[in-house]
């Protein structure tokens, strides 16, 4: 891909188990705090209570009386992140109504019609209330945000499994470059869900303790929940408004392994292709990268492939996984990690890769073990997904830190 013009990011919102907004998340990350425990919102009959990274039942801004919310939790997570991002960008409803604003959100749970209580009643030959289905039909994550803020631009929910959040930001930037929108809210959201929990347990890729990305003792992932949204701005809007940006989308690449439904390709072909595309679109070289935010789920296969590709293509570039803090938030993961990557560029340091303590002799590269100062104006964030999707973003620091 040829060079593409940078797209300004003027607002960020993020929430997950370790923080109800981006600042809180970053404080936890730098302090090395995490919260991993057996699920509270649901129970299961597994022999092991696989631990998760769960948020409080009430999300930021919600009151007790919202106990019967008319939206799925996934969409409410997305809305909370969108509100924070818009407020961070200093945007009011009146500003938005004059603009063509698109929404693109990644999810997995938010698009699945799998209400367990409804289905159990249906199987027993009862006539269940249709409310859960109506709620599902109202809760498409991108559509819910567009409706809440009365937005009129293109709207898309990306369902690329665990790379959805990364894809949504990359595609949102492409909408801006193509002139389809003045502003795009791009990100991802996913809630913890018993159905998904059973799914990951059945794949035998969950850790019975807090996850340990890239560690020799790693046994799998912890599921998590959360959301993140970035405000992307067109060049002309950014010039006219001349507000400070929080960073830039410099490049995006994606490619499919075309190998297996659930296993990553051992040679990392798709990931390498996605990295090459993202770098070439950004006009940056490996030497320009300050650090890499790896996918690093803590599963044996994922971390093996990723560390091989990192050591082969980006030797010496410091990297970390933030999954130890957030758990694997599926469709939100890429968006949360993009938000963290931007915050790290701003602060010129990255947190320790929590959960890593003991190097795996089989892995040619290991993540950072302490808070590490970084140099440089851009970083890479990558996601690997079910179905063999690989998606990569190159993100740039705001002017004055990097050299956009």
């Amino acid at each position, binding site marked *: 891909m040829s060079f*593409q013009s940078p797209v300004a990011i003027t607002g960020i919102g993020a929430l997950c188990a370790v923080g109800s907004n981006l600042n809180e998340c970053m404080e936890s990350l730098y302090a090395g705090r995490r919260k991993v425990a057996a699920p509270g919102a649901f129970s299961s009959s597994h022999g092991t209570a696989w631990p998760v990274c769960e948020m409080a039942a009430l999300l930021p801004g919600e009151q007790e009386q919202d106990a019967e919310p008319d939206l799925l939790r996934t969409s409410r997570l997305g809305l909370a992140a969108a509100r924070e991002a818009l407020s961070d960008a200093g945007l009011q409803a009146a500003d938005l109504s004059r603009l063509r604003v698109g929404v693109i959100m990644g999810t997995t749970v938010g698009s699945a019609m799998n209400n367990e209580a409804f289905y159990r009643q249906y199987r027993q030959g009862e006539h269940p209330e249709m409310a859960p289905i109506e709620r599902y039909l109202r809760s498409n994550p991108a559509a819910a945000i567009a409706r809440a803020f009365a937005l009129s631009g293109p709207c898309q929910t990306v369902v690329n499994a665990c790379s959805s959040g990364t894809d949504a930001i990359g595609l949102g930037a492409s909408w801006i470059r193509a002139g389809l929108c003045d502003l795009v809210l791009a990100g991802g959201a996913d809630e913890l869900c018993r159905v998904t929990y059973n799914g990951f347990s059945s794949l035998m890729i969950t850790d019975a303790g807090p996850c340990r990305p890239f560690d020799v003792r790693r046994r799998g992932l912890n599921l998590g929940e959360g959301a993140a949204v970035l405000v992307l701005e067109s060049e002309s809007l950014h010039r006219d408004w001349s507000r400070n940006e929080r960073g830039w989308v410099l490049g995006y690449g994606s490619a499919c392994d075309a190998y297996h439904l659930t296993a990553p390709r051992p040679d990392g072909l798709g990931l390498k292709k996605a990295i090459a595309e993202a770098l070439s679109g950004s006009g940056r070289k490996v030497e320009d990268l300050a650090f890499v935010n790896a996918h690093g789920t803590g599963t044996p296969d994922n971390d093996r492939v990723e560390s091989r590709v990192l050591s082969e293509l980006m030797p010496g570039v410091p990297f970390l996984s933030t999954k130890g803090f957030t758990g694997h938030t599926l469709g939100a993961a890429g968006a949360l990690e993009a938000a963290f990557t931007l915050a790290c560029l701003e602060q010129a340091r990255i947190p320790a890769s929590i959960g890593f303590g003991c190097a795996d002799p089989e892995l040619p590269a290991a993540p950072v073990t302490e808070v590490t100062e970084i140099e440089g104006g851009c970083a890479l964030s990558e996601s690997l997904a079910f179905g063999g999707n690989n998606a990569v973003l190159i993100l740039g620091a705001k002017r004055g830190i990097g050299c956009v």
Partner: protein
Amino acid sequence: MRIAIEGLGLVGGFGFGADALRNALKGNLPSPGTLRFPYGDDSIEAPAFMADTAPLDQFVTKRSLRRIDHFSRMALLGAYGALDDAGRLDSDPARLAVVVGSGYGASATTFAFLDSFIQDGDSCSSPTHFSNSVHNAAAAHISISLKATGPSLSVSQFEMSVPSALLCALQMLRENRADRVLLGGVDEACAVLGYCRQRFFGAPQGPFDPLDFGRQSAVAGEGAAFLLLSREGQGEARYGYLNDVQMGRIDQGGLRLPEKSALVLGADGHQGCGRLYQSLPIQGRAHVCHAQAYGSLPVGPAFDLAAAALSLKDDRLYPGTESLGDRSLCCLKLAEDGNFGLVSLSG
């Protein structure tokens, strides 16, 4: 930049292939089959346009389909059909992208996964059902089977899934991220969806007629419709060109219909959306509707694109016989929540 339509891959109640859809567009409408589902203590047999994926034998071995469910088989057949129709089964898979829209994803498998742990306990949750219930399973199976290592993208937002998927497919080609894109829509009719339809709408009121906007007459459908797309000049535009796709909200004045275009309306017999089509300013403008050929399903707009492509190829505004002349074609989908998707095509 215009985008060439090189091939069509279609499977639905009308059969398999472009000729089968063309036959239905000419007025030889398929008779619906039946979808059986429990209804309380009873069971109901509702009319539904069902798809048969037997022709997949032409393209892949039975063994390779071992773990692939009906939903992904329909998509796989659509994808192979489009490549075959374009004579590009040997297309360079390194530069081939796959973009799939679906309203509900693999719904039957989603519920089969729930069955696995409801019946036998959480520790007997089926990993095969779980993996195939993920919304991007169909795109993944296509990419894997074709060894397509370009971008693979799945999107899902009910009736707007296809216009939205198309938006990104066009961008992929315009940005030179791929040389060809397999763009498709797929949805299945399963028992639970049948039950929900029955609860929401009851039985269809009278014969299925999507142009009778005031009446709830929708008959469910399932299937897959795929288009093989490339940049103008890089492939034979056997079915004309896609010019543009627009999405937005009707009430915010974003919907502008191009002059001199005939309309393919995405109406599919639902009263709630019918009202919106009824209030369109389309007096005097030729408009047609093809849902009777494939049924009512969220990715109906993918079949409308295929029907428009056939109209362009044959220079005939189906189901009639009149020539398109110098008119372009626009496929317009309206959703009950007030969103629209507008795709313009020309010869």
